[in-house]
């Protein structure tokens, strides 16, 4: 699954000069207690703000139940700023977390009523709960990934069945099922946004297939251009063939060659 919901796009170069609040930064902010390979660490795909926070906490052997919120907030925000200055596109969730951390920090600074010994008054509790819950699923997901599974450690058997006297009925498909499947593809492709499926005359698509099949099945490497046109098909057929050949040329699926000007045109598969 290449197209996962990775939070950021790491197209930028690692060596890029960072600018934080208008100041060029050559060295990493001192607050980041991390070795010089830090920028590369940035480039690891964190699964989200909780994942990044867990990383910061683990990195310093901090106790998750007693997070020094001020420190962590400062570090987290430094990361966010450096990422921002590297033009790494940040998911909104990262900024929401920054706001939440800042809020907790400020609430920690407020004097708490003396009789509130109950833990539940600690503004960090909700964050700790979420971090723990996420960490728990993160670990379990890794364990599930380790389980032996079909296609990787386990394989199903295949038996020759041809000798068994049964005509295994093949699934029948109705045209409307096929079209409804295609409709959902169209809807999904549009929702995901990076794809626009355009209307193309199917007659041209079909002819493209015929031309490729002719080339593939032919003994000869070249087929004369004129052989792709038949009188019976009339003008319309000629136009379809021509469009199909132009489309195939454009996609580099065939080549049309000519030994000299005005000589006969030949169609061939591109050299392998």
């Amino acid at each position, binding site marked *: 699954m290449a*197209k996962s919901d990775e939070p950021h796009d790491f197209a930028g170069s690692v060596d890029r000069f960072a600018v934080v609040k208008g100041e060029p930064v050559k060295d990493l902010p001192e607050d980041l207690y991390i070795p010089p390979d830090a920028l590369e660490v940035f480039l690891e795909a964190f*699964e989200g703000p909780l994942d990044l926070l867990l990383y910061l906490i683990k990195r310093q052997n901090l106790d998750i139940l007693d997070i020094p919120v001020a420190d962590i907030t400062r570090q987290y925000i430094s990361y966010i700023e450096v990422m921002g200055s590297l033009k790494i596109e940040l998911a909104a969730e990262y900024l929401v977390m920054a706001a939440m951390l800042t809020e907790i920090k400020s609430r920690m600074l407020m004097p708490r009523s003396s009789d509130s010994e109950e833990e539940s008054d600690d503004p960090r509790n909700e964050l700790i709960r979420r971090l723990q819950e*996420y960490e*728990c699923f993160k670990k379990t*997901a890794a364990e599930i990934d380790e389980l032996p599974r079909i296609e*990787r450690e386990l394989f199903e058997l295949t038996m020759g069945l041809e000798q068994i006297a049964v005509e295994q009925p093949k699934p029948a498909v109705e045209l409307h099922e096929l079209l409804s499947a295609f409709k959902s593809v169209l809807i999904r492709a549009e929702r995901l946004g990076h794809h626009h499926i355009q209307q193309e005359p199917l007659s041209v698509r079909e002819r493209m297939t015929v031309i490729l099949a002719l080339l593939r099945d032919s003994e000869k490497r070249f087929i004369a251009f004129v052989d792709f046109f038949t009188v019976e098909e009339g003008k319309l057929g000629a136009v379809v063939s021509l469009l199909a050949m132009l489309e195939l040329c454009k996609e580099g699926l065939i080549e049309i060659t000519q030994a000299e000007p005005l000589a006969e045109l030949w169609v061939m598969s591109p050299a392998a």
Partner: protein
Amino acid sequence: MELRSIIEATLFAARKPLSLQQLQNVFEKEGCPEKAELREMIREIQEAYQPRPIELVEVASGYRFQIREEASPWVSRLLSEKPPKYSRALLETLAIIAYKQPTTRGEIEEIRGVNVSSNIIHTLLEREWIRPVGHKEVPGRPALYATTKQFLDHFNLKSLEQLPALSEVRLLDEPQTSDSLDYP
């Protein structure tokens, strides 16, 4: 042909795990073995294949023959297709659905702290590892997802209980009890 051989051949011919019920269906009314009988024969078959590189296992939706794990290096060389790799995002989503089912996309997002892409849900649905089992009666009526038998089959499991236990969490309030997370 012996009953046991019929069962054995049927299990070999099937392309999916077969339940006891499905095994009974290959017999005419008369001569159809009881489930207890079937279980006994399955045990015998399992024993007979001890020395072989294949085994008859029980998974969520029934019994199936599969290649023993030890042979996987050679078999995967033969098949030469790389097994699909699943992203952390997908596995985390799957884990949350498995342990919190039935659950909505929103609840998954809350735990993970990030969006769950439609792609992931779609891939999981397509693999038939999850399925919608209803709608939550909140605004938008989001689909409630649960895992399927196919998911368990794929991971060679008989039931959800065989999934790894959710890892231990130290809780703030009750430091002794570790699994207040509702395990299915």
